[in-house]
């Protein structure tokens, strides 16, 4: 079975702080990591490989430094890594990203494509389903359990509100996975050494025969107009004094509002 896992390199957003005066991000010293949900996608790919004697290819689109994320994935045990990097890809929204990924996946050939349910920097959860649409294959979102894999079909549990669906699909299929699916393995020492030496396949726009009007900023239907920080509430009251006085003031306010 040919398994392709899509990953994204993201800034560790829990470390990102905001400069309140300028409303901009302070990024100094913020590490880049593999999107946490994608680690579960890699683990799912490796487990499927072990079960079906297949191969796992990991793919990412991003700047040249995203190679680090691919090497991390290689150290976990994936067989092959592809970096989609081209000046033409810069500024892609989810539409253009999905289009570009689908072109590369079509070139690789895949029976199962696995994505994390969303990336922690954008939180859109759109690239998985959109990529499936471009490939004209079915997808199943929010997979939290893979119940059965045969050479004809895959049966999974899809998370829904207040429960789950049991869903079956033929191949090829794309699934997006949630954290509950598995516990990602840590890279072995052997894996780390192999990952350092491994060759990474690098593809640009011409390698995947993508249309220049459909990639990057040019191919993206959505545009960022501006970014800003949220506004301050006008009726705010700061409660001053010793802890005892602060608590008393709060009690009085809540009693005044008949909340106590």
């Amino acid at each position, binding site marked *: 079975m040919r398994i392709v896992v899509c990953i994204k390199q993201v800034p560790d957003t829990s470390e990102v702080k905001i400069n309140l005066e300028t409303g901009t991000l302070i990024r100094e010293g913020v590490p880049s990591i593999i999107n946490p949900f994608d680690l579960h996608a890699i683990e799912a790919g490796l487990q499927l490989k072990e079960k079906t004697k297949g191969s796992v290819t990991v793919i990412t689109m991003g700047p040249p430094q995203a190679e680090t994320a691919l090497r991390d994935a290689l150290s976990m045990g994936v067989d092959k890594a592809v970096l989609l990097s081209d000046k033409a890809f810069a500024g892609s*929204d989810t539409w253009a990203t999905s289009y570009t990924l689908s072109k590369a996946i079509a070139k690789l050939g895949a029976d199962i494509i696995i994505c994390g349910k969303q990336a922690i920097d954008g*939180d859109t959860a759109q690239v998985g389903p959109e990529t499936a649409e471009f490939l004209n294959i079915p997808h199943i979102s*929010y997979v939290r359990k893979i119940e059965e894999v045969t050479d004809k079909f895959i049966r999974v549990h899809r998370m*829904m509100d207040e429960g789950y669906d049991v869903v079956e699909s033929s191949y090829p299929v794309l699934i997006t996975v949630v954290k509950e699916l598995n516990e990602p393995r840590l890279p072995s020492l052997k894996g780390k050494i192999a990952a350092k030496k491994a060759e990474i396949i690098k593809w640009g726009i011409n390698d995947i025969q993508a249309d220049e009007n459909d990639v990057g900023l040019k191919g993206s239907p959505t545009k*960022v107009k501006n970014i800003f920080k*949220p506004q301050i509430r006008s009726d705010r009251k700061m409660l001053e004094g010793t802890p005892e006085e602060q608590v008393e003031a709060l009690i009085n*306010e809540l009693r005044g509002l008949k909340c106590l």
Partner: protein
Amino acid sequence: MSVIVIREKCTGCGECLPSCPYEAIVLKDGKAFITEYCQACMTCLNVCPEGAIVEAEVSGKEPVEGYKGVWIFAEQRGGKVASVAFELLGIGRRLADDLSSEVSAVLFGSTEEEAKELIKWGADKVYFASDAIFDRFNDEPYTQLLVRLVNQYKPEILLAGATPIGRSFIPRVAARLRTGLTADCTSLEIDKETHNLLQIRPAFGGNIMATILCPNARPQMATVRPRVMKRGVYDENRRGEIVKVNTDGLSSRTKVIGYVKEETGLSVNLQEAEIIISGGRGLGDSKGFKLLEELARLLGGVVGASRAAVDSGWIPYCHQVGQTGKTVCPKIYLACGISGAVQHLVGMQSSDIIIAINKNPEAPIFNIATYGIVGDLYEILPLLIKRVKEIKGIQG
């Protein structure tokens, strides 16, 4: 739009370099230079003291003509229309009024009775597809029919719930229609000049807000999380039209074999609770939640948490409030040791009363608080618990 440097204005001070989340600005020949890593996020625009970094319009695309009206996708589960549909009708109605056009709902499956409910909640029209294929959610037939309807009727705006259903198939619809889709919008407005939809959402893991446009493609598509928008006005006497939709030729390569309902416990209570006592990174460890539980019990509330507390493993995910957790709007929201990343704020900012306890007077949570207490939560909370017990006449 893209970002450019006006070389004449740039002094080469380098202040813009660390502001870029993508490390896309370098100094070249003593001037700032935007490399191909630029994602056009516009973060650097406010940073330059000389105003040398500006956005440039990408020209060559014409606005799209012939699209009219606001659509909302009314999802149903087990035949019952989900409440997020009524919330979408609330905002959809407002947008349609601003555009002097109509708001229509799209309902796949369920009954004509439910379609009539959508009219009472504000829909001028309901496109209703009655077919057993919609009894259970399945991405492909949903995608096929919605794409077909959009191509036939050409709405200029299409909104859907950011639920497991909406988040799963709506991206496919956008991909096939070659249009933009903005996830988890917290505010939607019409730009008075261009009549474009201004789609506001948290960005960068919820550290800041962004306004997104879809200027050259239609429909403009956005998802909204449940309980973010207010419902419209329910009018028993409102009249509207139900348009029966043909469902011939739908198919699916996936099969939904069954549905298993589970007790989700606290996560359900969280959205219905009137009082939420929430804890974040400032708690320091899982023991801090014992205090919150005690106070919540006394006040008849439930315990919430920030993403930081959940990611640290101090409390299960079902307690998480925020963009990637639950959106809540209780009467009282008490935030303890929560700094207030936008990702958290968007999940609780519509609460009636927000009380914030934090050591750091600069914490952004104070920006949206009704009452702010700068102090150590391990001093404040025990005192607060003691006083509440006294008032309620509880011993100990």
